[in-house]
């Protein structure tokens, strides 16, 4: 005998549209692409800010590289390795002191942004391909 606990078995069964799953899956892929595109814009903005900074300070950066004795000391350590052994400690500190820090950090940041942009573009491309090719049917 039916009791009140079984009332809800009397509810009609809602019909789920057959393509709803596919529509939802595609909307998830579109949301993913949107998110990736947003990240890509941020990364590219970071890259261009770095480039702009480098361009705006090109002369200072170039001067830093020119005047820095870092590379000449580095060359010296290869050409006169006996000197290196004799004064290794002094050379190490001299290298540290003359390291063109800002230029190197700037170059590394640019490289990181560029690599990130490449990876995001790749993922975006794969997601777009999935959106066009993957089907649940």
């Amino acid at each position, binding site marked *: *005998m*039916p*009791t*009140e*606990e079984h*009332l*809800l*078995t*009397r*509810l*009609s*069964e*809602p*019909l*789920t*549209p057959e393509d*709803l*799953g596919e*529509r*939802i*899956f595609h*909307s*998830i*892929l579109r*949301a*993913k692409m949107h998110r990736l595109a947003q990240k890509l814009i941020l990364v590219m903005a970071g890259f261009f800010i770095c480039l702009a900074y480098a361009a705006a300070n090109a002369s200072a950066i170039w001067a830093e590289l020119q005047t820095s004795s870092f590379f000449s000391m580095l060359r010296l350590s290869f050409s006169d390795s006996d000197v290196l052994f004799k004064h290794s400690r002094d050379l190490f500190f001299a290298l540290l002191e003359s390291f063109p820090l800002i230029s190197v950090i700037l170059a590394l940041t640019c490289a990181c942004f560029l690599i990130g942009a490449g990876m995001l573009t790749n993922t975006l491309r794969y*997601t777009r391909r*999935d959106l066009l090719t*993957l089907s*649940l049917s």
Partner: protein
Amino acid sequence: MDHRNDQELIMAYRAGDENALGWLVRRYVGPVHRFLTRMVGDARMAEDLAQETFIKAWRHLNRFDENKPFLPWLLTIAQRTAIDELRKKHALPFSILEDEALPDLGATIADTQPLPDVWLARKETAAVLEEELLRLPPRTRAILLMHETEDLTFEAIAELMKEPMNTVKSRYRRAILALKKQLTERFSTM
């Protein structure tokens, strides 16, 4: 059809298999849509909410503990999405059975006998039931639907809703009695 279980599909998705997510969507779109249709009483709105539910689930899938069952987690997201939407639209008269009014409800029901078969067999029972279901407070409605139509245990519902099990049970019982009372009133006048 993919025969991998939910856990395997989630892990496959995390490893980069987009299609695994597609299979999860396909597996659960029916239950989620059914639940949402009964929560909001509108199949078209339920489609949009199902989409929103799965997008939210996708966003949080990396944080989901794959050792736990997937459907209850999905239904919790669906329930919150539905409640947010209902709040936004103010489409339903929540006041009639708000949670604070529920404790006294059981006491007002004099007749606790089962409903007559002849009523339950009537064609319009489903429609009346759906209508009356929508008059329940959304959280109570969700408890009722999760337990009755999606077969979730009270323990699971209590854990998902972060409420004591006794509260969930008593809400369920009072909601059932309220539904019965409303049906009795409706059919008595027909």
